[in-house]
Each structure stands twice: as C-alpha cells, then as structure tokens.
C-alpha cells in the first residue's frame, strides 16, 4: 500500500489531480458540442454545471450535510428526509483513476479506482465534504473498497444488499437493512425522519422521476436529442439540486416536444439506432457514446445504472405512514433493479428486449470495464438473448485510459457499417 504520507506531496497530487480532472470535464463537454451537436438551448444549463463539476463552489452552504453514495441502491429519499443531500460519487475521471491505481490492485475496475482516488483526494462533484459515504455491497470490488479505504477521513457505511431479489428472505433482509440505515442517517444528520418530511422527499424524487419518464418517452418518439446529452443529464442528477434539475429537465422536455412537432431531428432517417448497455458511462468518461454518434450512429437509449436504471422505477405507497413508506422505498430499490449483482437477473434481459422494441433498436453495444466480472459474465446470457432475436451486438472492453480510442474507433466503425447494411 503506497498511500502518500507526506502532506506536501499530498497537496501537490491533489492540485494536479484537480487540474487534470477539470481539463477532462472541459474536454468532454467540448467533444459533446463538437461536430454533431444536439443544439438544444436547454442543454446549456447541463453543459455548464457538468463542466464546472470539480470547481470550488462560490458560496458553500456550511449548514448543508452531504451523504455520499456509491451506487444507485442507496435510497435517496431517506437522505432527503433526514435533512441531508445525496451526492453520488461514482468516479469517471482518468486523473483520479491513476491516483487510485497507486494503492489498489492492478486488475481493479477503473470506476472503483477512480472513486477511490476521488475520495482520497477529496475531489468529489461540487467539492462536497460528505458526512458519510454509503457503500452498498453490490459488486465485490466496491464492497471491498470500503475496507481498503477505511483509513480515509470519511466514515464508510456498508449497506448490505442481498445477492438475490426474488426470495422472501432477501426482501425481509433488505427491509431490515434499510430500516437500520434510516436510523444511522438520523444519527449522522441529527434530524429525525418524520412522516411529513419523508412524504415530501418521496414526492420530490417522484416528480423528478416523472419528468425523466416523459423525457424517455419523447426520446422514443423521434430522434431529437443525442444519447450523449441524455447521459449527461442523468449524470447531472448525481449531484445537482433536485428541484432545479427537475425544472431544467422540464424545460428540455418542452423544447423536445416542439422539435418533435416540427420534425427537427438530429440524425438522418437511416442512422443506426444503438442501445448502450453494460458498465456505466460516468462523466467525464463519455467517450463511447460520443464516438458512436460521431461515426453517424444514434444512441437511442441506454440500459446503464448511470442513466435510465436510476430513474425509471417509482414508489407506490399504500398508507402514508412510516411503517409503509420505508418498506415501499426499500422495495423500489430492490425489486425492479436490473443490476447484474443479483442472480438470477432475468429482468435485465427482459428490460433490454422491451427497450429494443420500444426504441426500434438496430444494434446493441455491450461495454464492460476491464475487471468487471459481473458485466462480463452477463454478456453471455444477454448475448444469447440477442442471438435469439438476431440483434447485432458489439462486445467491448475498455477502461478510462484515453489511449484506447484508436482501437475503439475501428471496432465501432465496423459495427455501425454492418448494422447499416443489414
């Protein structure tokens, strides 16, 4: 373990890390706006906040408590109800990846390395200083990360996710875990979760989910927005103020509706419609969707946990009391989840098939990070399902290193050609 003991050196690494991170963010936004560009005015807000992801905020609200989460399985409604703000800190920057690589094994997934580096250096989105880092035991790399980085400043909390979501035992287990988590949150923030504030939190998140669903539906109706922009929007959800995000998404929806009416599309009729799935594209690592769209394809939809999987399921509560709201929240974060850490994961295949039908997909690009055993293993089952419907699929393995773009270009180009010619 080679963590940096010297404080001076630490500060230098942090400074260079933040500069490189900011540069990556800027480059990513520039790439998005380069050549093929959605040209939606409502997207400017999102470009803006994502570009400044690592900048020091002008005024920091010292009163505000932040709870960092490392996965979509952390119930954000509970965090809002406990008076804190959830920020998802899954890392997408190569700069922090390199830092994390210093003290993690070589074959670690780049996202875990990047997150570790970001936590170590304190380079989290919006430069927030979390009171608690919640780490669900979804994939084993993430799970073990908690132990390895236990020497850091931040307090880590392991959220025990069951490996199966079908049995009654796993559901009961998860309910108990979520209830204990709610208690932990209360002790961290010092604010009690009451009926009223939890109901408010649920409705707040639900409204955002409603807007996103509408956005999702609009994307299926006509190609009026690029996939890279859509992925950017959900990446903004990681850390943005929820009410403002919802409002801006609403504006975007209206602009898209106008476009659909006027039939102002961003790609040609016969541009190949691609479904992206696999290890998530996290800002600023959007090189794959940017590449595909540069080559003339359209990322019509994604089955990513940094995209649709985060926001398409919603909570239905029967009785607005804590005894029903908290199990309802727990159920929503377990039952419809298509994360490959659950075994069996039939739901993911069904979801992909339903998305293929809804979005009229021509080809599937399946990406897994180097070292991501879960997505690698699932590529077999998903692959079989794709073969059955004769859907052309491209399997890619990549990481955060920008040097492999050459190889990616070749493969993507070839794939898009074969899809076009089908």
């Amino acid at each position, binding site marked *: 373990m080679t963590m940096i003991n010297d404080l001076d050196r630490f500060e230098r690494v942090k400074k260079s890390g933040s500069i490189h991170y900011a540069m990556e963010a800027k480059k990513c936004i520039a790439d998005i706006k380069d050549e093929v560009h959605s040209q939606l005015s409502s997207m400017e807000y999102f470009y803006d906040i994502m570009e400044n992801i690592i900048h020091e905020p002008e005024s920091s609200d010292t009163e505000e408590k932040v709870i960092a989460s490392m996965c979509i399985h952390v119930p954000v409604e509970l965090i809002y109800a406990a008076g804190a703000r959830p920020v998802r800190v899954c890392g997408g920057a190569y700069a922090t990846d390199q830092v994390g690589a210093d003290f993690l094994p070589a074959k670690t997934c780049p996202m875990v390395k990047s997150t570790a580096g970001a936590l170590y250096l304190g380079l989290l989105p919006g430069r927030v200083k979390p009171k608690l880092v919640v780490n669900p035991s979804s994939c084993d790399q993430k799970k073990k990360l908690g132990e390895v980085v236990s020497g850091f400043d931040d307090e880590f909390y392991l959220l025990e996710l069951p490996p199966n979501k079908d049995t009654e035992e796993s559901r009961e287990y998860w309910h108990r875990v979520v209830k204990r988590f709610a208690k932990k949150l209360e002790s961290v923030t010092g604010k009690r979760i009451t009926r009223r504030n939890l109901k408010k939190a649920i409705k*707040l998140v*639900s409204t955002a989910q409603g807007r996103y669903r509408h956005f999702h539906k609009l994307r299926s109706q006509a190609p009026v927005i690029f996939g890279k922009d859509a992925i950017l929007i959900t990446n903004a959800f990681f850390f943005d103020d929820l009410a403002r995000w919802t409002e801006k998404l609403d504006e975007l929806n209206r602009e898209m509706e106008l476009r659909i009416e006027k039939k102002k599309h961003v790609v040609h009729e016969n541009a190949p419609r691609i479904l992206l799935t696999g290890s998530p594209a996290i800002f600023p690592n959007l090189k794959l969707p940017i590449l595909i769209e540069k080559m003339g394809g359209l990322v019509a939809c994604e089955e990513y946990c940094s995209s649709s999987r985060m926001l398409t399921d919603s*909570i239905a509560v029967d*009785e607005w009391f804590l005894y029903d709201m908290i*199990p309802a929240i727990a159920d929503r974060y377990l039952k419809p989840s298509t994360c490959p850490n659950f075994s069996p994961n039939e*739901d993911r295949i069904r979801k992909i098939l339903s998305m293929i039908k809804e979005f009229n997909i021509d080809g599937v690009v399946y990406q897994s990070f180097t070292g991501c055993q879960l997505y690698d293993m699932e590529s077999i089952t998903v692959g079989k399902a794709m073969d059955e419907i004769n859907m052309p699929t491209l399997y890619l393995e990549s990481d955060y290193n920008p040097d492999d773009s050459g190889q990616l270009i070749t493969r993507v180009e070839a794939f898009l050609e074969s899809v076009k010619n089908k």
Partner: protein
Amino acid sequence: MKRIKQYIDQANLSRFRTYFQILAFVVIVYGGYLGINIGDKTPAFACPYSPGSSGTCYLVAVQHGLHLEWSSLFGFRGLALLTGLGTFVLFFVVFNKAWCGFVCPFGTLQDWITKLRKFFGFRFSRYDEASFKKLKIIKYVFLVLLILIPLAMSNSFFGLPKVSDDMSAPFCQICPGRTIAPLLVGDTSEIFVDFTNKTTMVMSVLGLIFTALFFVGSFFKKRFFCFFCPMSALQYMFSKVGVLRLTKNGDNCTRCGNCSRVCDMGIASIADDIVSTNAVVDDCMMCFKCVEACPEPDCLDVKVFKGNIFSSTSEGFFKRYGESELADQSKK
C-alpha cells in the same frame, strides 16, 4: 375519444370506488325498506337475516337448495338448482370479481374499519408466503362443507347417521353476516348463544367468535374476512368467463412489485407472474388498486371483453402518487 380515455386512465379510481361502495352499501343494506329487490341470487353478502336487506346472498339458496334427498336431486328440484346456479352466474359475470371489491357491503365495512385503523396510525399486518398458501385453502373448506352438510342432512353418507337438522344452513350459522347485518338496521336479535342442545351451542358460539374475529381481524389486516369467504371461492370458479377482466402484459412488467404491495389481499402473483395474461386469482377482489399503482404503460389493463376501459399509464401513476409543488423545494 382519446381525451376521455386519458381522463379515465389518470383518474383517482380509489376515490370513485369509495363513493360507489357507499352507494352499494345503502342500496343493499337498507334498500329493502325502499322496496328495492335485487333477487335471491346475489353474488355478494346481502344477508336475508336483516329486515332491510334488498337481496339474498346466493349461498343461502345453495345451502337450502341442497337440503334434499339424492332422488330429488335428479328430478325437478335438481333442475331448479341448476337454473338457480345459472342465474347466479349470469349476475356474477357482469362485474366478475368486482362484486367483492365494489359492491359487497361486508367488504365495504372492512374497508371502513381499515380507514379507522389508519386514523389511529396502527400498522397493518401481512401474511408471509408460507402462511398465505396454507390459509387460503380455508375458503374452499368452507365451500365444500356448506355443500356437503345440507346433503348429509337429508341423506346418509356411507351408512353414517344423517346430520341433525340443527345444522341447517351451516355457513349462515357461523357467518359474521348473520349477526352483523341485522345490527346495521338496529336489530340485535341474532346475537345469542343457543343452549337448546350441544350442536346449537357450538354453532352459535362459533358464529359469535367469527363475528368478533371479523372486527378485530379486519382492523389489523386489510380485508381479513375476504380471504376466508366461500362466496369468493364459488365466484372464482366462474371468473374466467367474466365480462369485466383484469389482464397483465408480462413483457411490459419490470417486476417492481408496486401492484402486490398495495394489494389489500396481499396477492404476490400479480407482481411475480409475468406469463399469464389473466391476472385474476381466487383471492382477487378486483379493486384495481394494482392498476393504479403500476407505472408502466399498458402493463395492467381492466377490460370489458377485449376492450380496455382503464389501463396503467405512467402519467396516471405520477398524477396519483408523485406530483409535488416544486416552488418551495429549492432550499430543502
């Protein structure tokens, strides 16, 4: 047309159901005083023990009609049984199991008791999977007994002595409807322990125990009694030919489980079964809370024959469960 469908799909069906239930309750429990008569093949608990009842529960006809000898069964009386059953089926298929969810006054009573529980803030109970599977059989046991006992009163089964006449209308004697329906019109004459002989003592005490269980049970568990109702078991046999239908399109289902979590009866198959199209099982009372709670478009549909009249939509879902005022949310 599309606007009407949109309005219906986004409507708050639960509120409509509450009002409909109140109307049906008044008509069935007090309608007799207004001269309303819906007949004696009613597929809901319209109890004839109450003087104000405007109809008679079909189970009464079953129990009394089967009190005949084998020889009569193959004669004119047997034919009368069949025509009675046919009339019942004709009444039933119009609303299918929605008789339970929208019309039955005892279902309405239980829903009101549930509202009372919510008022006090008590948590509700649920059956776990194993108990659910074992307990649901009780309604079939009741149904079989209420068919066999009247037959055993007129005929000797396997050379055993005939069952005593004190067991006449056996389910009516233990049914909470017999004690409660007259109470609703102010008549306490059915609340008694009958000391004539052991049989009457046991049956009347059982009836009182079930009455107490009805109230306490439905206080803690939503629609407690409906889980054990033999009318539900009888209705389910004819549910497949119903005019009103509840179907599921498994391809659109994300298995989020919202439907089974809001289900009053606790039916898990509505969420877990993604293969069958007919979503109505023997416990279902077609209250359609599941359809309201489904965020996926066109996953759960209420149909009349093949045409949708109420479907699950994401706009409808968010209207019912989601919306909040955004204006005051910028600073949490």
